[in-house]
């Protein structure tokens, strides 16, 4: 058994942060932690970093992760096999996304707020069903209407989108120019083999509404 003590590098404040994040069901912003602990934000941020470093150094099964503008406790990657077997955790907790859904999310994320027709114009395919499904799963939200003919609905990504992809904020995404410089998508090689496969139960389905 491993016992964590103050002498090993975790402070009282660090322990409190750990306890708060342990009970939190969603990412907790550093500002909220600072308010709860009555500490200056800079001190709180330093304590979070120290706790993060401590958990990684000691090989803890749970680690800190910064996502969706806050901090949360997550299991270590190397424990994934065991955790996913525990009471079907993988099935109940993980959102399965189709390629069409991820691509639609990418277009929305980079252009938000964006209308459905703008997404369809970029993707070259009807996206009504994918967008409806993403909405129902809380990955995107309606963010008003665009001025102009028909006043079409505008869509934005949600915090759940950030959490699902482990992003701190939208600004963490590389720019489209940076992406252009990257090598072709790695899964390209596997396309040939995947072309005959059919995946079930994915958000958005593999295809779209072909006009």
């Amino acid at each position, binding site marked *: 058994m491993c016992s964590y003590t103050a002498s090993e590098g975790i402070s009282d404040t660090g322990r409190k942060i750990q306890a708060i994040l342990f009970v939190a069901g*969603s990412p907790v912003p550093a500002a909220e932690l600072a308010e709860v602990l009555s500490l200056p934000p800079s001190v709180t941020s330093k304590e979070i970093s120290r706790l993060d470093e401590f958990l990684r150094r000691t090989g803890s099964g749970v680690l800190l992760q910064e996502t969706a503008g806050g901090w949360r406790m997550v299991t270590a990657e190397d424990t*994934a096999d065991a955790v996913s077997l525990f009471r079907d955790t993988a099935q109940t907790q993980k959102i399965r996304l189709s390629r069409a859904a991820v691509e639609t999310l990418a277009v929305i994320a980079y252009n938000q707020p964006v209308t459905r027709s703008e997404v369809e114009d970029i993707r*070259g*395919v009807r996206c009504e069903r994918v967008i409806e499904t993403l909405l129902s799963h809380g990955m995107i939200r309606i963010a*008003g209407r665009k001025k102009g003919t028909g006043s079409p609905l505008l869509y934005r990504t*949600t915090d759940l989108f950030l959490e699902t992809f482990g992003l701190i904020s939208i600004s963490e995404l590389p720019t489209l*120019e940076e992406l*252009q410089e990257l090598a072709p998508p790695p899964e390209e090689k596997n*396309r040939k083999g995947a072309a005959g496969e059919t995946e079930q139960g994915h958000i958005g389905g593999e295809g779209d509404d072909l006009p």
Partner: protein
Amino acid sequence: MVQNHDLSGFQAEVSGFSGPFDLLCYLVENRQLDAAGISVGQAVRIYGAYLANTRRVSVAVISEFLVLAASLVLNKIRSLLPGKTAVQEDGPCGTEEESRDEFDVEEKLSRYRPYRKASAFLWNKKEKQDLVFSRPSSGDEGQTWDLGDLYGLCSLWWDILEEKRGSGSSAKSTWMDREDNWEGMPVPLPDEEQIDMKISEIMGILKNSPAVSFSKLLGNSRSVSVFVVTLLSLLEMSRMGRIRIVQEELFRDVLIYSI
């Protein structure tokens, strides 16, 4: 490629691909498609017959399909494949239109390609993220309440107001028609002017302070008229992108931030 259909329309599922552009990119880049070997007429006939047999697809869907089939299979693929000179050999009458189509497809694909990479980037992030688990939300926390569609909210409000106006004369006379109940607002003043005045007032408050609560804006006056004008003013200001409206928890005060 698997085709199926349901009551809401024709759907094409392309296994392993996110959509036709993704498939098109793949085929073109890997030189697996020979445009010369594709009979557009035959493809349209086969799919047209299929759609007609389903008897559940609207004319609009069929027409859209025909447009897509014609443009995707003929113009787009041909113009993307090497050997553009061969296309131009068709003669001067078709050159202008074909070069426009070629430009159109090339422009669309060059616009689409970064998103294809962005999709791959997100896919990799998701795969990595799938290896970690967190405490599931308990349900009683983390609920977000979003004002969302302001147009819809506004429409709903006016519908309710109209309904209230139309329901029973007693209710109508108690608060809608009594001028003295519209405290703080001169009755003959048009609604737009009242809202303009309120917007100026709120902007004045926000100049001195970064945020103000909705209850503070209402002040001691809790009359319906003041509430309506304040709410509409906030919605209008939000639409104009001058403020941000936040309600952190249900039943908590609404905070208005200046942008």
